[in-house]
């Protein structure tokens, strides 16, 4: 049977680090890149007697994420200990949520091709991250700076049917978390991590196949590669009369294949039980409602609004909303300038180009949305030409100055005074009788020559529309003679 006769079934487990200042159960910093073990308290080190106290910001962020993913928020949720021995796990257990997670039964709708796809979210829970082990010679070295960093684990139902769907789901989920300000969305640095549960079944079958858990998927490309490889491997296995083992496999990014993790011995028994140091978390309905009220508009809703209300193309709307900061810039400028299409062109054009070229974050740029709106108004008011405006914007981007002041300083102001332009037009026509004759003889291409001459004489500042209109009128007149 070919691979097309099989239906892949995929569910994703995402671990997203929360953007708090301090850790989930201690006051140690979550800062990245410090000297090993610097960001630790007695709690992070698992010292005797140390007790966890919950960071309320973590709860806030978890509820934000849960609401954005249409979850039911549990007003009563419970902390559990998950036991295993590993050097990066200082207490010998991880504090997580097991039987009563904070969020359940949500869903995520994301664009897929020309349609939208909806994936159910099984649960979201809060937990602590482990530290890091570094392998060096005959030793492994333990750094607990990351131990206790707050994580959200977001578990989807097995609703995904292809590697492409999985990647798009993941992108949409990342965009949402970044929009919410709860995660930085960085797969490579591991602040947004993904494991995939993959199985295959024959098309039309009602029962899922045995699932394999894939780890080490630290880019969208790897997520696709690993899942596609795993689907093919499982199909081949089943076709050859074999059986898929329930196991955990690592994605080997060098070889582009998955391989079983060594040393799994007996199936793990984590001995979960409620953590007696942390009483159940109880939320007031008003707390949840308050967070709901301040939830930002999410990417997909924004795209719909940009298309339906602002009249942007789907393509532009997606591009604008892909970056939360760009969308915010666009919307701020839109409050001062009404032509959404023109504004979108500038945001996706000059603004994005400058940001990329200069390598600065959009949130750090000097030019403000109001200033961009001012420049577009100047173009509409014909005080600057479209071409000159690009140069003006470059200077605004560098300096953070207003359009008017740059235009004035650089002398890029556009001449729209008809009298002044008419004088130049008359002069040019008078100096090029041969070309005028050609034009009159029907060689209309010469018109461009006249425009060029006039603009050169005016050092580019002539309002192009006025120049065109006057030239046409004068040439008509001369023909009438």
């Amino acid at each position: 049977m070919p691979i097309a006769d099989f239906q892949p079934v995929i569910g994703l487990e995402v671990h997203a680090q929360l953007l708090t200042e301090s850790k989930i159960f201690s006051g140690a910093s979550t800062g990245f890149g410090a000297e090993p073990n610097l960001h630790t308290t007695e709690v992070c080190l698992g010292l005797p007697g140390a007790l966890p106290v919950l960071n309320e910001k973590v709860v806030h962020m978890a509820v934000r994420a849960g609401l954005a993913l249409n979850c039911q928020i549990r007003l009563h949720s419970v902390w559990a200990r998950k036991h295993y021995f590993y050097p990066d796990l200082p207490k010998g257990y991880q504090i997580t949520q097991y039987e009563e997670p904070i969020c359940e039964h949500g869903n995520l709708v994301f664009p897929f091709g020309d349609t939208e796809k909806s994936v159910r979210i099984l649960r979201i829970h809060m937990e602590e991250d482990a530290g890091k082990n570094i392998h060096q010679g005959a030793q492994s070295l333990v750094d607990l700076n990351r131990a206790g960093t707050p994580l959200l684990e977001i578990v989807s139902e097995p609703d995904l049917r292809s590697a492409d769907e999985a990647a798009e789901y993941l992108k949409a989920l990342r965009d949402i978390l970044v929009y919410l300000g709860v995660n930085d969305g960085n797969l490579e640095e591991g602040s947004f991590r993904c494991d995939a549960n993959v199985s295959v079944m024959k098309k039309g079958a009602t029962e899922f196949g045995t699932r394999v858990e894939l780890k080490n998927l630290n880019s969208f490309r790897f997520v696709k590669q690993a899942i596609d490889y795993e689907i093919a491997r499982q199909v081949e296995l089943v076709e050859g009369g074999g059986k898929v083992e329930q196991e955990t496999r690592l994605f080997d990014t060098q070889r582009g294949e998955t391989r079983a993790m060594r040393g799994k011995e007996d199936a793990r028994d984590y001995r979960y039980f409620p953590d007696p140091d942390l009483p159940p978390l109880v939320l007031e309905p008003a707390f949840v409602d308050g967070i709901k009220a301040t939830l930002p508009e999410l990417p997909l809703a924004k795209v719909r609004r940009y298309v339906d209300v602002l009249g942007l193309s789907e393509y532009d709307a997606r591009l604008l909303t892909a970056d939360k900061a760009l969308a915010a810039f666009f919307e701020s400028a839109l409050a001062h300038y009404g032509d959404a299409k023109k504004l979108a062109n500038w945001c996706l054009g000059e603004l994005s180009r400058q940001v990329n070229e200069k390598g600065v974050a959009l949130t750090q740029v000097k030019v403000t949305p109001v200033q961009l709106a001012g420049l577009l108004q100047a173009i509409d008011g014909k005080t600057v030409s479209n071409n000159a405006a690009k140069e003006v914007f470059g200077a605004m981007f560098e300096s953070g100055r207003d359009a008017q002041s740059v235009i004035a300083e650089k002398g890029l102001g556009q001449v729209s005074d008809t009298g002044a332009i008419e004088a130049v037009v008359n002069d040019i026509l008078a100096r090029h009788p041969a070309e005028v004759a050609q034009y009159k003889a029907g060689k209309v291409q010469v018109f461009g020559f006249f425009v060029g001459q006039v603009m050169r004489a005016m050092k580019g500042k002539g309002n192009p529309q006025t120049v065109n209109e006057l030239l046409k009128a004068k040439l008509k007149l001369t023909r009438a003679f």
Partner: protein
Amino acid sequence: MNCTALSLTQLSGRLAEKALSSVEATEACLRRVEQVDPKVKSFIRVDRDGALRAAQASDARRAAGKTVGVLDGVPVALKDMLLTEGLETTAGSKILRGFIPPYDATVVRLLREAGAPILGKLNQDEFAMGSSTESSAFGPTHNPWDLSRTPGGSSGGSAAAVAAQLCFGALGTDTGGSIRQPAAMTNTVGVKPTYGRVSRYGVIAYASSFDQVGPITRTVADAAAMLQVLARHDARDATSHRVDAPDYSQGLEGGVRGLRIGVPKEYFGDGLDSEVGEAVQRAAKVFEKLGATLTDISLPHTRYALATYYVLAPAEASSNLARYDGIRYGHRAQGIKSLKDLYATTRSEGFGPEVKRRIMLGTYALSAGYYDAYYRKAQQVRTLVQRDFQSAFQNVDVVLSPTSPVPAFRLGEKTQSPLAMYLMDVLTLPCNLAGLPGVSVPCGFTRGGLPMGLQLLGRPFDEAGLLQAARAFEREHDFSSRWPPLTRDARADC
């Protein structure tokens, strides 16, 4: 004059009158430790310099008229479960040998802030798992009343040190009776506060939903004075009660007139030493004479409490002790080549047999396939035990019982049978299951001269009521002025 025979509150008075300095009192304690403790073996670490420094500071405060309360200048000592910054803390275990805490337990900080010099660390059962102080990696502590016997446990070092006049008060921890039972066996007063009343921050965890720190002292007033310092909200312990304690000294002398005392029949059953039973019945009559009313009550699930406790406490312990792996602190096995060996060998070398037994028991109770039958079942029965008390406290104010079923037993008598040892907690651990406050107060001596204690249990956060009742009983007797024979030989003049 032998000042170490003073009670904590008496000493505090002498210090206030400047009849005595804190340095003098501290030196007297240190001298007695040198003289007496080689026989009792209650201290596993003496911090002479630290104690004298604190005493000098206290005397300086007093000279400047800036004393900070009743405990200012009063030398005390601590069970080794409590972390002391810069002073080795081991929980009586080889696995923590050499561990120098980088921070103080909250209760230790509170004692320091109250001006009490800390003489050192006291012996205990390893990780508080035991009822005789015999499972300590440092060897057993001896009962000052009879050196061939145990002082009880697990806070046996704390009880023995107070009984032998080595300090004016000590802190213990109580998970299933570890403060009250040794207090009963040494003619001292022991208070196990309501769960959440005293911070557990910096207290080495045995079973987190049971553990509480409390004082062991010579008198009820002493216990009230120490508890007053400890009973504070602590933001670093999420289970800490959010309301600060009332003034325990306020109604201490208020008597028991009108107090409704329940006497649970289940606490006077098989296994209760007849002399202990009679002593507690006599005590009940004393309460009655003082104006209290006695009611026979039933706490029907008492017989399940032991099994419940010995599922839940080891389960929590197996988790709490997972952190001892020889990586960040403590004992580490030598010559290890693989990570797996690092864990298994370090832990097998570092833990003693009773600790291993409870880790095994707890791990089993939490493991796949047994969780519901053992752990969850025990949690449900815990609810039933708590409900027993809740309904009893609708009709009575205090529950009266023996503290320990027997007086101090001989060293080695029960070490071969875990179950026989576990039975030593049978009357104290229901209180921990329900999270209630409990007090043990001396109630006499056996014909053989061994101390006995009675237990008073109260409603959550009614420590004041318990102390008041205990004081009313204490006032009728001279038990607290009786001392073990060996204290007479020692001199500690000051």
